[in-house]
């Protein structure tokens, strides 16, 4: 598993154009897929572009979706920095959303800030859990985060939101209406007229800048990277590796939790009865295509955000909006597959892939 993970996230060795080429090819393939299915691919693509970039409204949609993807993508990227593959951004996002929805109902000065803080805290705790299980009990984070996603989904959406935290009076036993709405002061302010663009996008960019700064400019971030690339070596050099892993997972969860808060405070204004976003899972794709760096993740998130925003327009010409997922999936495949398969292909041909850098001799220590 660490081997696979290291190959999947190989930012330093993969030039930027690799990711760009993968995106372009996946767009081309999607285009052909639409054309083959007998639809009007050209006007479909025109709709896609105008849905994502055609004016202030569509740009706002793109920014809203990108903002959440930036945060969940950063969440996955930060966890990877400390060497963990966080599949649990979805669960962390759900708790963050719920915390924002609950705290946002309290009418106090600075309600928005309190809500954001509560969301970050809730996500951090849900992210800390798999980190703690990893260092204390050796539980593999992929397993624990996947399971914790389901626990979060069922606790929040199967019990808390329809039950104890649900808006009263909307149903006898079960509420489908979600929680009470948040107070106006807790909402993310809109930035322009004619667009739903809110404070979330600048906040996400700020988070990305902060993560970049933390990881590349502070020695604490250096310790995280050291733990992620060589846990034993870092520990032997005096870095408290277990604590750093927990910190990294807490920040990872906090970022995903903030992503949830943006959805609640920005567009939903309450925790809705039906809330299946998939943003947490898409964060994995974003971080993969972005090569695990803050900058790459932000760029990938904006591209995928635009796809999501544009895809809603495609329904007008009868193209299913899951088209965006097709493109996204293809992009991940094209980015990830070479990292996985090129070394394999090279080995089959009896030629070591990166002869100069990697000794191709497999070693089994006695």
């Amino acid at each position: 598993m660490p081997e696979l993970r290291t190959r999947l996230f190989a930012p330093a060795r993969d030039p930027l154009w690799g990711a760009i080429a993968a995106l372009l090819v996946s767009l081309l393939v999607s285009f052909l897929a639409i054309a083959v299915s007998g639809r009007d691919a050209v006007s479909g693509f025109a709709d896609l572009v105008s849905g994502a970039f055609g004016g202030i409204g569509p740009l706002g949609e793109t920014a809203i979706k990108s903002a959440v993807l930036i945060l969940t993508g950063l969440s996955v990227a930060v966890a990877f920095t400390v060497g963990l593959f966080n599949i649990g951004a979805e669960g962390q996002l759900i708790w963050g959303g719920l915390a924002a929805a609950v705290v946002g109902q309290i009418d106090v000065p600075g309600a928005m800030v309190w809500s954001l803080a509560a969301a970050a805290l809730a996500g951090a705790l849900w992210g800390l859990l798999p980190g703690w299980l990893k260092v204390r009990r050796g539980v593999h984070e992929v397993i624990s985060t996947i399971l914790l996603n389901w626990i979060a989904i069922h606790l929040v959406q199967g019990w808390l939101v329809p039950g104890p935290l649900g808006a009263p009076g909307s149903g006898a036993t079960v509420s489908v209406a979600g929680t009470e709405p948040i107070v106006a002061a807790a909402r993310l302010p809109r930035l322009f007229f004619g667009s739903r663009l809110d404070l979330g996008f600048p906040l996400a960019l700020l988070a990305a800048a902060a993560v970049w700064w933390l990881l590349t400019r502070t020695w604490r971030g250096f310790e995280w990277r050291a733990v992620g690339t060589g846990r034993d070596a870092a520990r032997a050099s005096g870095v408290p590796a277990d604590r750093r892993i927990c910190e990294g997972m807490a920040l990872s969860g906090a970022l995903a939790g903030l992503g949830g808060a943006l959805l609640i405070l920005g567009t939903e204004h309450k925790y809705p009865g039906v809330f299946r976003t998939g943003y947490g899972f898409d964060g994995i794709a974003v971080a993969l295509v972005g090569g695990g760096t803050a900058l790459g993740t932000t760029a990938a998130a904006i591209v995928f955000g635009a796809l999501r925003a544009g895809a809603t327009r495609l329904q007008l010409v009868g193209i299913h909006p899951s088209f965006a997922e097709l493109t996204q999936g293809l992009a991940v495949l094209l980015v990830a597959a070479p990292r996985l398969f090129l070394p394999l292909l090279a080995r089959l041909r009896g030629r070591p892939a990166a002869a100069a850098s990697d000794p191709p001799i497999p070693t089994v220590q006695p």
Partner: protein
Amino acid sequence: MNALELHGIVKRFGPVTALDGVSLAMAPGEVLALVGENGAGKSTLVSVACGLYRADAGTVSAFGRQLPPADPRAAIDAGIGVVYQHFMLVGPLTVWENAVLGREPRRLGFIDRRRSRREAADVAARLGLAIDVDARVETLSVAAQQRVEILKQLWRGARALILDEPTALLSPQESAELMRTVRALAAEGRAVLFISHKLREVLAVADRIAVIRRGNILRAAAPRSRTDTAALADLMMGGAPAVVARSSPSRMLPQPGIVLRARELTCSSDRGLPALRGVSFDVRSGEVVGVAGVDGNGQTELAEAIAGLRSAGGLLSLDGDTSFHRSPAAARRAGMAHLPEDRRRLALCGSLSVEENLALGHHSSPPYARGFLIDRPGRRAMAQRLIAEFDVRTPDPSARAADLSGGNQQKLVAARELSGGPPPRLIVAVHPTRGLDPRASRRVHEALFAAQRGGAAILVVSLDLDELRELCHRILVLFDGRIAGEAAPDASDEQLGRMMLGQVPAVA
């Protein structure tokens, strides 16, 4: 007809020319030694010979047939077999299973176990390899595992055998045993390419000696009688002072203060077996104490216990602090520096840069950091200083540490631990010069002496008795988790060897 012949081999890695038109031939029945400093191109040459690398020019032939480039299978079929430093064995399988792995004799689609076992046993018996073919490999000593590797190659029909630094992990007795095996292989008509840093053993075993320097073979036919270690070293280094000539270092007498104190130290191995069974000793300020022993007698665990990497019973104190070993971080704060045995796992973050690895451990204090920020110019300047001082061969401080050769990785770790931070109080150095050429070894030894003059207590674990003799004031011999004896640096191989095998009660 030559068993193995390389002709005009050129191999470049990007801008770096690793091999620059190397030609080399060995006849059946011949032991050819290949010596050269770190990064001279020895490993690259092996990789070309066995078909792992494609040469940019030149040909490889075995027994008169030219081999297709970059085709390991063809090389194996042609009779070329390589025993690497890092063994490629499957621990839970038996010796004979490992020997036939990948080319199992079959019968009716199933592995013909009886025939496999018999054939492996036959090969072992014919060469007098002391080995139980039914033993599980993970229960064997390092020397025995190496014999399994040799057995595997022979069973596959290797007639040109390449041994890559085969004695690096062996005790003197085991090395002598290996030399006998090598001569027996040659007597059978096989060709052996013997790669080593240890000039003394090269002179003992080889028919001819080839010296490789900066990708060129300088001399492939040194007659043994007229060569001595100093001349060889000269040739390897290319005009550098003859570093092998033993010049007594400026060895100071230890000072009175005890820095490291160990009393009735016990701990377990990774497999939960007792590794140390009550070890007591002191290391004084300015004293260098050696730990000798056949690999696996508790040296690794002793070093790890002191470094805070392994929990131990009994008492350990560093300058009176009895809890310094509760964690590596605490040990570092107390002034410990550690050159671990497994440097790739315990000392390096391979995908971080050389510069970052040089800072690791000292990274949160000046000149590497200012407050909570990384001091990038300071860190870069420090890295450049350490790279120059220890002659770490890297294209750039921002190159990945994993891309350095093994010897240069060791130099990197030594540079960081010995010169990268505040002067250490205690140095635990495990195989500090393993894989280093004489010049680089010299550099590491000098750094150890400098620390010693500064009052550090130094514990050196090594399998190289010459190194221990040169460095240490006294040598402790570990056998089966206990101190089997203590020797002065002038003790003979024979005396030390007997203690290492637990044959002599403690002297003095």
